[in-house]
């Protein structure tokens, strides 16, 4: 209860049931509780889709850290969402190797076909959020796009509409 009060919002605890068990299984992997922070945050994001203030307080309490410390870590890493995103999160690589192969046109095609309008915004139907991401490490397969956990290679503007049909 204290976590919800501290966050000033209603927060349903994440670390109960099977998620709690997953967290407990991580502790033997590290000599300190603090080291479980990154994997614990991944568990939160898997369960809730993003990491709320309430979740930050809960993680802090579970790992014996301060909420401010946890927030400092959450905001350092770009893959943790600090606000809700669309049902499908689309990351288009636009760093130089992909950029010279037309990645910015791919981004535009995603913005157009999802109805997101601009980078970082969620489409009005709540289905998509599109962002540009720095190097996805698949430069020989330009343009790579990460949709949720799916790594799609060799995306061209022409393929975008078809790819999106697989994500309702």
């Amino acid at each position: 209860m204290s976590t919800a009060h501290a966050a000033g919002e209603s927060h349903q605890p994440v670390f109960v049931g099977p998620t709690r068990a997953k967290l407990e299984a991580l502790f033997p992997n590290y000599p300190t509780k603090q080291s479980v922070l990154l994997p614990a945050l991944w568990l939160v994001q898997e369960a809730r889709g993003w990491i709320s203030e309430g979740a930050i307080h809960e993680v802090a309490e579970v790992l014996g850290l301060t909420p401010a410390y946890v927030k400092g870590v959450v905001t350092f890493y770009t893959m943790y969402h600090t606000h809700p995103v669309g049902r499908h999160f689309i990351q288009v690589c636009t760093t130089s190797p992909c950029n010279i192969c037309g990645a910015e046109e791919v981004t535009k095609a995603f913005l157009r076909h999802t109805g997101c309008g601009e980078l970082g915004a969620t489409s009005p139907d709540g289905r998509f959020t599109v962002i540009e991401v720095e190097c996805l490490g698949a430069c020989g397969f330009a343009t790579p796009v990460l949709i949720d956990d799916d790594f799609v290679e060799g995306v061209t503007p022409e393929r975008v509409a078809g790819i999106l049909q697989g994500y309702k």
Partner: protein
Amino acid sequence: MGYPHPSHAGEHPVLSKHFGDAGARTFDGWVKRGGYEGLKKALGMTRDQVVEEVKASGLRGRGGAGFPTGMKWSFMPKEVVKPHYLVCNADESEPGTFKDREIIRWTPHQLIEGCAIGAHAIGAERIYIYIRGEFTPEHKILLAAVDEAYKGGALGANVFGSGRRIDVVVHRGAGAYICGEETAMMNSIEGKRGNPRIKPPFPAVAGLWACPTTINNVETLAAAGHILRQGGAWYKGLCKGNPKSTGTKLFSVCGHVQRPGNYEVVMGTSMKELIYDMCGGMRPGRTLKAVIPGGSSVPIMTPAEVEDCLLDYEGVVAKGSMLGSGGMIVMDDSTDLVYQVMRLARFYAHESCAQCTQCREGTAWTTRILEKILAGKGRREDLDLLLDLADNMTGKTICVLSDSCAAPVVSAIKKFPAEFDAYISREKQPVMVTA
């Protein structure tokens, strides 16, 4: 092999021999292909003997720095007083580099075998494989392979009946290029922001949780299994150029070549052969403008420098750049170099951990000045300002992220001045509306 293309006669596939072959991905499949023989051999040897074998091979770090691997391993204390740790750097994020991803994707056991050999050599019982957060399929493949390796006896309390304990923990990153820097990586594993640490102390003295630690790249560790199985002398014999650069190396070639992909060649192979014969050269009607040979953090090369460049640590340095990770970005005459250098600067500005002033401010200002030039508002003095900034960003910070931003900028201004002049003299139409 030149995955996703068939192997080229000029290649020498060792690490990439089974790329594209899904059968090599399982424990049994790897064993059938001669896998885990290197680890078994290593377990029958003392720590020192394993280190000596790797020293004899001449293997150098494939993550970019090229530090001799055997020597790095020998820095670990002989007596295990506090726990020793091996960290495998699978945070492949250097623009232009995509080799480690293929090793994990096709041959995860090749990596696990190398990790276990490394752990044995440094007296570690636990290995952390730090894989970047964006490699979602590879993360799953690796977790499945680790599971299988435990069941097959290649990991656990009694590895292949040797009495030796070796455990692997796969630690997933969460989106931060800087965590590929070894001390930032250790902070990230400890549950901290990925800020690099000041050295000394070096990791072999005080690394993870202040315990002796060694950090090796995926490709480096993957090579260890082959070196143990076939001998250091065999590996050392793979050399076409400088005898200080031995073995095979994976080159990730991307950009404007006809067949981008990974190519594995013997050290000292000609760069031109790689770009023109193996990768098929430029697209029809196009000519080469520039190559960034070692991931985006190294100086840009001109076609004249590419002409007789040998692909080994010394060969690329002789041409004014660095071999780095072997991630080659090839750019033809359609490329706007000023725009691409701005994109790289923007990358480093985005990825700066912001600890050091020179980096935090330098990468941001470099980006803004380049944007201003691209917007048609540049002045001649801006180029001097960029060079002055770069000077203040080089060799003055905790890690080399800031140096990495400066290298392509300085080399582009010095080697391709006409590209910048075209914008500054307003000969070329502005391409940006901002700034």
